[in-house]
């Protein structure tokens, strides 16, 4: 083997890549191709036939544009709120928590020891009419005596934000933690105000973390359906709920497959726009 590699040195990188490429081919490209094949079928279950049925796509978009738009809106709000909540928190952990850093990081990750479904179901109790949040808000007269939080847009967006928060916090932490403290001292020495030092040094240096966190939060949030199902009403259904119902209830696999493709394409476009806006080198850190 050693001799073989020595003689064919140019092959080495490809051999090293082979397991990863094989993995991608089997678990990503093949299913994707199958999904594409299915999305262009027509007929009724279980006798679907491949007929280049591009109408599946146009119909999917026109019938479900409301849910598509809602998915991106909710995912966008959840991403921004996560960023605003996570940044000060991990900033404090990275620069101020000292020896307790790992403990606080553990607190952020701890909910992940519980399954997704259970975490979401917990919000049924947190937002319950008899629960602490509604009680406090009613006490402050921010909610009327008959108003609640459960089964509202707020509940769904809060659930999504909560569930994807660690995906924002952890990459942010990594990029903040790597910042060389001497750069901040230098800024101070050069008479930069704390605000200016933050804007000129810390923020740009943490940009890769912001970008990575945004993507890791936004992409899965846009496809989420558990939060809308458990915490929402028919008025909060997202595109993931539609895809699930098309697959399971309607047995309309072509429409479900084309909706999945539409979602993927829409995320990809959003990604490209975002990359353009922030500069593509930041996407890779």
């Amino acid at each position, binding site marked *: 083997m050693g001799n073989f590699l020595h003689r064919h040195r140019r092959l080495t990188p490809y051999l090293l890549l082979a397991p990863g490429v094989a993995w991608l081919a089997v678990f990503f490209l093949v299913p994707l191709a199958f999904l594409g094949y299915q999305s262009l079928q027509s007929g009724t279950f279980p006798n679907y036939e491949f007929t280049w049925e591009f109408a599946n796509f146009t119909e999917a978009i026109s019938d479900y544009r409301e849910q598509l738009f809602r998915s991106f809106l909710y995912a966008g709000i959840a991403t921004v709120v996560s960023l605003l909540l996570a940044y000060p928190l991990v900033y404090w952990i990275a620069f101020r928590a000292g020896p307790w850093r790992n403990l606080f990081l553990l607190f952020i990750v701890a909910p992940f020891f519980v399954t997704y479904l259970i975490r979401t179901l917990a919000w049924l109790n947190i937002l319950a009419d*008899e629960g602490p949040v509604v009680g406090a808000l009613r006490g402050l007269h921010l909610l009327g005596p008959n108003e609640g939080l459960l089964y509202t847009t707020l509940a769904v967006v809060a659930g999504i934000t909560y569930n994807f928060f660690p995906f924002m916090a952890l990459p942010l932490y990594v990029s903040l933690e790597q910042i060389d403290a001497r750069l901040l001292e230098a800024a101070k020495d050069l008479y930069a105000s704390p605000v200016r030092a933050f804007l000129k040094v810390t923020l740009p240096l943490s940009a890769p973390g912001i970008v990575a966190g945004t993507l890791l939060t936004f992409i899965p949030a846009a496809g989420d359906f558990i939060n809308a199902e458990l915490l929402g*009403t028919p008025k909060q259904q997202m595109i993931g709920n539609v895809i699930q*119902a098309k697959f399971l209830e309607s047995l309309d696999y072509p429409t479900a497959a084309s909706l999945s493709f539409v979602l993927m394409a829409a995320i990809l476009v959003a990604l490209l726009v975002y990359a353009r806006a922030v500069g593509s080198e930041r996407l890779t850190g």
Partner: protein
Amino acid sequence: MTRPLTRRQLLERAALGGAALTLPGFLAACGGGGDGGDAGGDELAAVLRFANWPLYIDIDEETKKRPTLDEFTRRTGVAVDYFEEINDNAEYFAKVQGPLSQGRGIDRDIFVFTDNSRFPGLLIDEGWVQKLDKELIPNISNLIEAQASPPFDPEREYSLPWQSGMTGIAWNEELTGPVTSIEQLFEDAKLKGKVSMLMEQADSVGLVMLANGDDPAEVSDETYDRAIDRVQAAVDSGQVVRFTGNDFAQPLTQGELAACVAWSGDMIQLLADNPKLKWGVPKDGGMIWTDNMFIPTGGSVPTASTYMNYVYEPPVAAKIAAYVNYVPPVQGAKEELLKIDPEIANNTLIIPDDELLAQLHQYDSAALANDEHISKWQTVLGQ
């Protein structure tokens, strides 16, 4: 390894009477044979593989064993692998349709689908389930009249009921007085924003059809549209906030919901734990649905049929009903229940009396497969 019992032998021995079934020689004859694989033919398999919903068979709370299954094994030598793996008709169907559509088995001898979904009809039409061996099921004579001839399987060639349940309206007495009609559920201002319905169209649309004076057993496009327009209006006005599976229990108990369309079986336990909760069949009538046992492709017909015969013995049916709190489809189960638990036997939610049965309706099974209806219903659900 001993030779598995053939169907003929089983019939001969059965003819000798129930006592013969407990003879040690009989046990030796059928114990341990085969490997429980896709046993076709006439022989009993060593293992019966039974897929069912959770909490849907008797369990001895102390030993965590399942007494009626153990008794079946004791009598026939057939061990039972019992899988509580069905949580949702559509989800389970999605899981099994791949192999079944390719003519492969799914390593199960019995699985269960509800007749308020389109799947029983679909399974039979596609030929994904096998005919029962009725010679092995003499106890089929105990099947209650109301279940003898469902539209999806008029001769009961492929299916036998496991348990039935009723769909009605539940309410929380701390928040409202009795809710006895769909009209009240949809229009009572006190309930606004605190009402949920069930996600299965047969349950929810069926109740609304009854309130409209239409027959849910004979659905037309006109009666269907009339019903879902009424549901849509209630959703748009904010009266109905959610569509649920059996997850209505927690919000109804906590008070986020004041009233909801609910299943009888789920309510029995809730009613026992929470005196403030009530359940009733609306004045215009309620729905009844039934979970049906089927033998999927690749399953052992003699083994599954033998088991079905066993659960149609009234004492066995009574033991199961006493635990699961759903309606047994077996004549004589009430008399047996009176012996073991008179309170349950006299509970009309478990053994409905004739008056209650007369108010219950089945949903049109052909309409359940209507793609246009399904699509319209999903629009109501926001999907």
